[in-house]
Structure formats: C-alpha cells, structure tokens
C-alpha cells in the first residue's frame, strides 16, 4: 500500500472527531442516567475536565513494564478497531484503512485490548485487579460467542468479510438493512452489543461500586486518562461496528452521530431498566437466548 498523507490526515481527524463525540456521548448518557434517578447530573463538559485533571496529576507510580503497557494495549485495541472501521461509506475520505477481511481484524482487536489490560492489571499486584480481570475475560468470552455467530451469518449472507462491502450491500433503502434481511443475526448481535458497550446489566467488571472497580483499581493519573480516552473511542467504534453490520452504515456525519447515539442509547436504556447481573448470571444469559439466535442466524444462511 502506498503511503498516502491525505488518507492519514483524514484518519487522524476522524479519530479526533470520534474521541470528542465519545466523550460528549458519555456525558449525555450519564446525564440521562442522572435524570432517571431524578438528579440534574454532571455538566456536559465534565468528561473533558476529568481528562485534563487526570493528565495533570503530578505524581505517578509504576509497578513495572507491563503496568505501563496495559493502558497502551487497551488504547491500541480501541484505536485498532477505529483504524479498520469504515466510518462514512460515501466517498473514500472516511473509510480509514478498511480492506478485505477487516472484520476479522476488528474481532481480534476487541479482545486485544482486554488481554493487554489483563497483563497490566495483573502486574499491578492488587488482588481486586486480578479478580476483576478474570471476571471481565470470562464475561467477554461469552459475549463474543453470539457476536461471532452473528458476524459469521452476515459474512455468509453477503459473501464477504469486508465491512465496507457489507455496508455497500445494505445501501439503497431502509428495507435493505441487515436488520430486515437477517433479523436473527441482528437480534443476536444487538444482545451481544449490550455486553460489549458495557452498561448496567453487564458492567459488573468496571462498575465503581462493585469489587472496587476491577481491572483499573491501580491505574491513576495519566494511565487512567489513557483508559478514559480509550473508553470514549471504544464506545463510538463499537456502536459504529453495529451500525455498519446491521443498520446500513452512515453516509454522512449527521447520520453517523444519530445512529451511534441510538445504538449506544439502546444499551443505556436497557441498563437503566435492568439491575446488574452477577458474572455467572451474565455468562449463562449470553449462552442461552443470544447463542440460540446466533445459531439460527448461521443455519438460515448455510
């Protein structure tokens, strides 16, 4: 591939947009949660201030090399998904570095950040980190099962592993979306989205008032700032992944923002209604209905 400065520039600009949109979306969702609890909630610019605050902490402590690399792996997981994800399908400015077979790479990057975090948090030496990460990995493994089945079903349906091709195949009207052409895969995928977006029923791993916040227990200052930035990016790109897979992608930034907001809101909406699941409950939950839906989706297109 030739080095293309224009393409790199647009990708970095897209990353900036995605980061800021992710922070704003996090603030919106926390405000929605506050309104449900009849509070006023944080100001909309609070995530940026928290980010500045965390980057401005003067002292850091480290527990070794892997402790440094944990947040970096996590960030590269989020940015990696972004790099290979087509954002806006029309034109070729916002396709990033998507290519044939990027779907496999995206699936890999989803787990990559988690594994890096496991290594880093384990190095931290805090027992809560280790417990949190083992919970997180076991839950994420079961989330991946229905998600992978849904993606396999779509790959068979459209006969491609390229996200851009999947999105292009859904163009041409509302009824062309995978949501209508492959409803079982959509159902399985959107149930898995509840887990990957990490809201209430399945947020035991990172919830601050559970076993004190799990993997990032030891992370502070800049480390935490990196994790927060990654969280913002990851929320948008995960929502964009489901948008591209099931809801016809986006043809401009307005559509992108509306669709990612609604997909993220779906997980927040469920999270506001349902209480938190314990790990063994969520593991068995993902291995019941979403798994069956995923299997049906695959069998339908065999």
């Amino acid at each position: 591939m030739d080095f293309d400065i224009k393409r790199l520039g647009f990708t970095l600009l897209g990353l900036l947009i995605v980061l800021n949109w992710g922070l704003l979306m996090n603030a919106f969702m926390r405000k929605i949660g506050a309104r449900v609890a009849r509070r006023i909630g944080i100001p909309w610019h609070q995530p940026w201030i928290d980010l500045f605050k965390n980057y401005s902490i003067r002292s850091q402590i480290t527990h070794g090399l892997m402790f440094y690399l944990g947040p970096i792996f996590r960030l590269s997981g989020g940015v990696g998904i972004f790099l290979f994800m087509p954002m806006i399908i029309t034109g070729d400015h916002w396709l990033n570095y998507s290519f044939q077979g990027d779907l496999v790479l995206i699936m890999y990057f989803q787990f990559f950040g988690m594994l890096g975090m496991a290594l880093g948090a384990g190095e931290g030496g805090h027992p809560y980190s280790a417990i949190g990460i083992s919970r997180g990995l076991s839950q994420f493994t079961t989330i991946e099962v229905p998600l992978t089945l849904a993606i396999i079903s779509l790959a068979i349906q459209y006969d491609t592993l390229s996200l851009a091709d999947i999105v292009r195949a859904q163009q041409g009207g509302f009824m062309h979306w995978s949501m209508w052409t492959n409803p079982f895969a959509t159902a399985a995928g959107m149930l898995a989205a509840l887990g990957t977006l990490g809201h209430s029923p399945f947020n035991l791993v990172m919830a601050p008032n559970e076993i004190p916040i799990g993997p990032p227990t030891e992370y502070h200052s800049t480390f935490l700032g990196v994790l927060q930035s990654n969280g913002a990016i990851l929320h948008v790109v995960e929502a964009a992944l489901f948008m591209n897979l099931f809801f016809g992608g986006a043809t401009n930034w307005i559509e992108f923002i509306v669709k990612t907001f609604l997909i993220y809101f779906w997980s927040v909406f469920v999270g506001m209604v349902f209480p938190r699941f314990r790990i063994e409950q969520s593991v068995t939950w993902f291995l019941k209905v979403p798994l069956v839906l995923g299997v049906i989706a695959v069998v339908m297109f065999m």
Partner: protein
Amino acid sequence: MMVDDKNKKKFDNPHYAKREVIGPDGKSFIVDPMNDYFCDARPKVHEPNIIPAVEKFLNWARSKSLWVLGFGTGCGSIEIPPLITPRFDVFRFGIQMRPTPRQSNVFIISGYLSVKTLKRVIRSYEQMQNPKYVLALGSCTVNGGMYYDSYNTINRLDYYLPVDVYIAGCMPRPEAIIAGFNKLKELIREGKGEGANLYAKNFDWYKANQKKIIKDWNMPDYNW
C-alpha cells in the same frame, strides 16, 4: 495495675515477619514482606508547572473535577449519601466518589478519628497521588469535639495530615459540606491546594506525630 517497660506489649505481626518460603518449583527463597510488599521511598515534593498560565488552567481543571475517596471514617460519613443523591446532587459541581485511593483527589475525614482508623487513613492518604486535598468534617477533627478527652480519638487532625478545609459542626449539614467544597475549589484555583507538598516537606514532623500515637507501627514509613 502498673505498666513499666518490662511488661509493655511487643507488637510483632507474624504476617510481616521475614520467613523462608518454598516455591512451587521446589526452590526456597526468603520473603521479607516489609521490603517486598511495600515501597519505603520518601514522598517527593512535586513543584507546580513553571508556566503560570498552564498551572492556572490545570488548577481550574482540578477544582472542577474533585474525586472523593469513598472512605467513611466516622459518623459524619452518613452525610455523604445525601450529597450524591437527588436532594443535593454534588455531581453538578464536578464532585464524584471513587472507590480507590489511587484515583481520588479529596479525602473527607468524616468526623471523629480513632487511632485504629487513623492508621488506615494514613495508608490511604499516602496512596493518593500528588495534588490531593483533605476535607475535615465536624468539630471532632478541629479540637476533638465531644471526644476531646477520649483515650482513643485524636484531637487535632492537622498534626497528622495536612488539612485544606475544616468544616465545623456536629455534624455539618450537606449544605455546609457543599460550602466547604466551594472553599476548597477557591483554594485550588488560587494555587493554595498544596497539601501533598506540605506533607512531603514536613514529612518527619508528621511521621513523629503519627508514630507517637500509633504504637503498633507495623508498616513502612511511607507506603505509596
């Protein structure tokens, strides 16, 4: 009942004793928890940013994002739940609770502090990262309050930790705590929230005071 040096208790925690352990590979090695589990490096003074405009901006961000360590040390911690629930809702002012000392900036000493709790408070305080602030609630932290003559509660908190803001009252209402937070924000914006550096500068004095009342000091001097 007389107490002299001979029958004074010795405080050796067997968990912290040096011992030989046989690992899973069959080799034996020495474990010295006091050196292996903790770091005993002294705290360092971290100077503010040399560019005043940058420091001013960072102080503004710090004052707008106060993360409180969720550690209720005394009866005053009952005033914290109304703060974060709909009645007073301090999230509006950028104040949040964090469960781990690593990520928190503000330590609320909520009311009386027994010697036993003080030991945990010191450990938690030292694990917090550099710009860190202490908010002392209630008259117990000012002069001992109603426990001024108790054998087991401290009288003045500022002999053991650098206190930024005292909030008087027994107990202070949530409104008073919000007023205290506003005072703390003013101090931070003026660049006066340097409690961590004060602690590092006067480390020996603080340690001497702490060790005077914590008799079974079975931890390192500074455990970040």
